[in-house]
Structure formats: C-alpha cells, structure tokens
C-alpha cells in the first residue's frame, strides 16, 4: 500500500484500526490496532490498545501489549505498560517500560515464555506462528490451562527458571485465530 494512514493529534478514536499498510498515530486511541505494516506511535500519542503489526516503533505512551513480528522498538520518551513481543526488541535509554519482554530467539524457557504470551492469545499466537514453527504445533495439541496471572509469572521468574513448561495455547485457539485473521 502506497499511503501511510495518519491519525492526527486532534483525533480520538474509540474502536479498531485494521488492514494493510503503515499507520502513524499522533492522537488518542482506545481499542485495538492490527495491521500488516509498520505502526509508529508518535511522541504525544496516547494509545490504550493492544497493537499487532509487522513492526512497531514507539515514542509516545501506550497501555497495551505490543506485538511486532519483525520487531518492536521503544525510543527515548516512550512510556509503555504492557507486554512486548517481537523478533527483536529494542529499548532505548530513556524509554520506560513495565511489562514482560520476549524476543523471537529467547534462551532456555521457551515454555514459560509461551505461557506468559498466551495471556493474550491473539497477538502472541499470531506473532508466534511464524517465529516458532517447531514447538507451536505440538503445544497446541496439548492445550493446557491458559491465562496465567501476571503476579504468578513474576513470582515464578523471581525464584529462578523452572523446568520448561508445555506452551499453553488453548485447543483450537490457533484455528480460531486463523479463521479470524482471514
């Protein structure tokens, strides 16, 4: 797609943005963003939404999970409360984050990471599909209990790495997701 969608500073959207192409957000959004291109959240933007895109660059404020297939980058000035998922994740000095972080090629605890990711089945599963071909199919088949509370996960992380846990995608979640995402 040629043009970039720009949600200007004077805009307040309560709803969703979906489709193909790049999106630059300078205003305020409450809802959901899922696009095939790059999402840039500009300095001054206020985003209360989960964002799923090919790539995400943040300079503004976000309350929501960010899933960037190719990567997520938080620049100086970014303030994010939410989980970051991406093939690569960059957090510049001066960017503030509170949430879980998972890059595409994380060491050791793949299982635990997937459990945390499964709290947001939609963005995590979508992002995880291309990135983790091997564990994912076996995992979906097992289908164990899904959302783990953030507190439980944080606690787990504090006591050190547990043995690998079977990834916790609910049975049928991936299929349902595939159906949803056209």
């Amino acid at each position, binding site marked *: 797609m040629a043009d970039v969608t720009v949600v*200007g500073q004077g805009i*307040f959207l309560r*709803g969703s943005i979906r489709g193909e192409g790049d*999106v630059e957000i300078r205003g305020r959004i409450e809802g959901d963003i899922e696009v095939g291109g790059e999402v840039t959240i500009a300095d001054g933007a206020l985003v209360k939404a989960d964002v799923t895109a090919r790539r995400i660059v943040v300079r503004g404020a976000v309350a929501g999970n960010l899933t960037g297939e190719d990567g997520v980058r938080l620049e100086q000035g970014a303030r994010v409360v939410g989980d970051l998922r991406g093939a690569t994740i960059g957090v510049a000095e001066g960017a503030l984050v509170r949430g879980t972080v998972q890059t595409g090629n994380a060491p050791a605890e793949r299982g635990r990471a997937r459990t945390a990711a499964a709290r947001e089945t939609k963005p995590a599963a979508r992002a995880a599909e291309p990135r983790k071909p091997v564990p994912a199919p076996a995992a979906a088949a097992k289908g164990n209990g899904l959302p783990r509370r953030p507190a439980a996960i944080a606690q787990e992380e504090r006591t050190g790495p547990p043995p690998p846990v079977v990834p916790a995608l609910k049975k049928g979640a991936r299929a349902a997701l595939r159906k949803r995402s056209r």
Partner: protein
Amino acid sequence: MANTVIAQGITIEGELTSEEDVVIQGTLRGKLVSKDTVNVESGAIVEADIAASSLSVGGHITGNVTASDRVDLMPGGRLIGDVKASRLTIADGASFKGNVDMDV
C-alpha cells in the same frame, strides 16, 4: 493539508472524533464527528453517520450527514442517507438517495 488520512487498505471501526480535517481513502464504519472538514475520496467506503463543518463526497457513504457549512457530492460520489446542511451541491454523475434538510 489534512492532518488525518485514513489510507486505502485500512479499515477503522468505531467512533472517530476529530478537531481537524479528515481525509478518508479507506474504510470507516461507525461514527465520525469532526469540528473541521471531512473529505471522503473516491474509493473510500463509509458506513457511518458523519458530522463535520463541511463534507466532500467522492466515495461511497451510507449514513446520515450533518454539516454546519456545506455538503458537496462529487461526480462518482454516492450518498445514501439524510443530509442536513445549509448548502448542498450534487454534481452530475453523483448518486444520492435520502432526505435533505437545508433549514439549519
């Protein structure tokens, strides 16, 4: 030029409130209230009520529109819904189905 552009390929669903000009080239479903102008370009699809200072219709709109100033239906533009505006133009080649109230 417009600060806000909804490009082709993008679909916005929900309530959009704007203090500035809006250009729609993609799809909008829901409701749009702009303090400034709204320009629905050729190829755009809007299923929403729109309120704006002025509205230009080059694409397809299904919904009621209210403009404090004017509404212009361009050639190729299509509006199915009621119009409330003090000025209205319907170009040759535009389609319109609805009621018009120019007593604002």
